């Protein structure tokens, strides 16, 4: 099983390194005046990340990632949500919301028609009524 502290410590160290040497120089304009320059705090924070990443390697606790399957399932649901976002931007919330609700409910194992009907059609309908009709705001 993966030691959570060692794995994440390494990730944090690499993140700090990338920030300090690649991201911050490329994404923050250099200014040569004032006590606090635009890159001063980000650079300090990147150094802190590097130091803490190394310290975590040295003082790792016994915390382990015990259920990689759960993380894989979470990644799957994350993809569903990202596809849902893409669908909203393409066909709008009103049409994509029932599809997103159906995907989530079916993936969770819901098979009862009444609850499926309520989740797929009832919830988007209530949201439409509240947001567009009651609040007068436009759904995405």
């Amino acid at each position, binding site marked *: 099983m993966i030691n959570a502290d060692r794995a994440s410590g390494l990730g944090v160290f690499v993140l700090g390194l990338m920030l300090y040497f690649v991201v911050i120089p490329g994404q923050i304009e250099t200014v040569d005046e004032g006590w606090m*320059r635009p890159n001063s705090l980000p650079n300090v924070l*990147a150094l802190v990340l590097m130091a803490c990443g190394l310290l975590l390697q040295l003082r790792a606790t016994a915390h382990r990632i015990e259920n990689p399957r759960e993380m894989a399932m979470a990644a799957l649901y994350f993809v569903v949500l990202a596809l849902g976002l893409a669908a909203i931007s393409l066909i709008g919330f009103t049409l994509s919301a029932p599809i997103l609700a159906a995907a989530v409910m079916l993936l969770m194992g819901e098979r009862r028609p009444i609850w499926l009907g309520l989740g797929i059609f009832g919830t988007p309908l209530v949201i439409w009524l509240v947001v567009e009709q009651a609040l007068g705001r436009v759904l995405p």
Partner: protein
Amino acid sequence: MVDFATMMAGFSDAFTLWNLGFVLFGVVVGQFVGAVPGIGPVMAMAIAIPFTFGMDPLAGIGFLVGVNKGGLVGGAVPAVLMNTPGTPDAAATALDGYPLSKAGKPLKATKMALFSSVTGDTFSDIVLITVSAPLAIIALKMGPIEIFALMIFTFSVLSGLIGASLIKGVIAATLGLLCGTVGADPEHYTPRLIFGQFELYDGFPLAAVAIGMLAISEILRRLAQSQGRVRPAVELKDTGYAADRRVSWAEYWACRFTMLRGASIGTLLGAMPGIGSTAAAFMSYAATKSASDAPESFGKGNLQGIAAAESANSAVVGSNLIPLLTLGIPGSVGAALIISAFMIHGIQPGPLLFQDQGRLIYGLFGAMIMANLMNLLVGQVGLRFWIKVVAAPETMIFASALLLCNVGVSLATGGLFGVAVMLGFAGLGYLMTSFGYSVVIFIIAFFLGPRFESSLGQGLVLLNGDPTGIVYHPIAMILLLCSAASLVWFLRQNQHAHED
């Protein structure tokens, strides 16, 4: 600082039908979501914030306060009935609530939880109302150097108290501060870390970050854990005696010292950043048990145990707002969410709040007191209904919550870019909690980030770029020394835990 007429005007604002209606709605929503294991008031507040955008500030903030307070009462229902606390705060309530429920007295247990929760909450609100204005006067005397030192102290305490590892706490705070630097820098207004996305010029939207990390990441976790199981319905036992369905005045009065102790512990711990209501509940429970003549009765359905836990965890809610309203520093995620609602309405939190928005603040205090009363009334009527809510299918709840988050964030941020940011932070939040990092510290640091940087910048200007000049600022020196001492202490604690 705030004249009497402004105070009275604020209180009277809270008592308008419109505002009372929103507080009541918030309490109902809070009790409902609190009763659903896995949702809880923090997630509900995060989802609700964008919907307060179109409301009057007092109505919106009163609604959120109602959700927060109602959630604590609702959280006791699944703790008592299923031994599955709806919120972590209610874990101590389950110790005696669940045995009492199994003995056929579920309504007595939930009602004791309700009464003691309202008692503790009201005590803490009274303390908040009386001490926050004088504290704000003191806070106004603090300059940027002292504010910067105070933030360092807050981060060091939060990093040590929340989670099992100080180093991970520091990493979470650093990541939060780093995300807070995205956008225009406060001194030169040059864009930083925006990767060509001009929507990021004002930084990551707070609503998208909070909802992504608190609500969506938790929903992702619950979805991944669900594996198609349907939660079994809860069967309630009933002894058939009317006395076992209610709490008599004698039973309530017998717990008065327990509730007073719990409320005092909760109020004291709530005023300090990071400790939170779960610790307060367990500390109060332990103190009550050790002070009791019959400690062996605890854990077997003792009403004193429920009163101790609930009065303490609810008392945290009011006093949590003390550092928020006086210094602009949130001590918990709930407080950070309330502060984000302030900002959505264009109100800058901090010591000037009493001076600039005195009427609104006293309106908030009035709304808090009314929320307690409504908690009592709604709880009396609604507890039977919330008991049924416990068995509602997760599939329906989480699918609805996801849709609400999408809509809420797009409304708050003005488009789908905010929803994309929310998704990104949901992934980060999920990874952080999976690897044992606190998202609470991250969000508080993210929120304080811009103020942290501007205080540091102003402080350096005042010190003419010489950090050693801080020795002429005794309050800042004391705070920095306290920060160093707390870091050393927490490191030693971690070391002992590691060796054990």
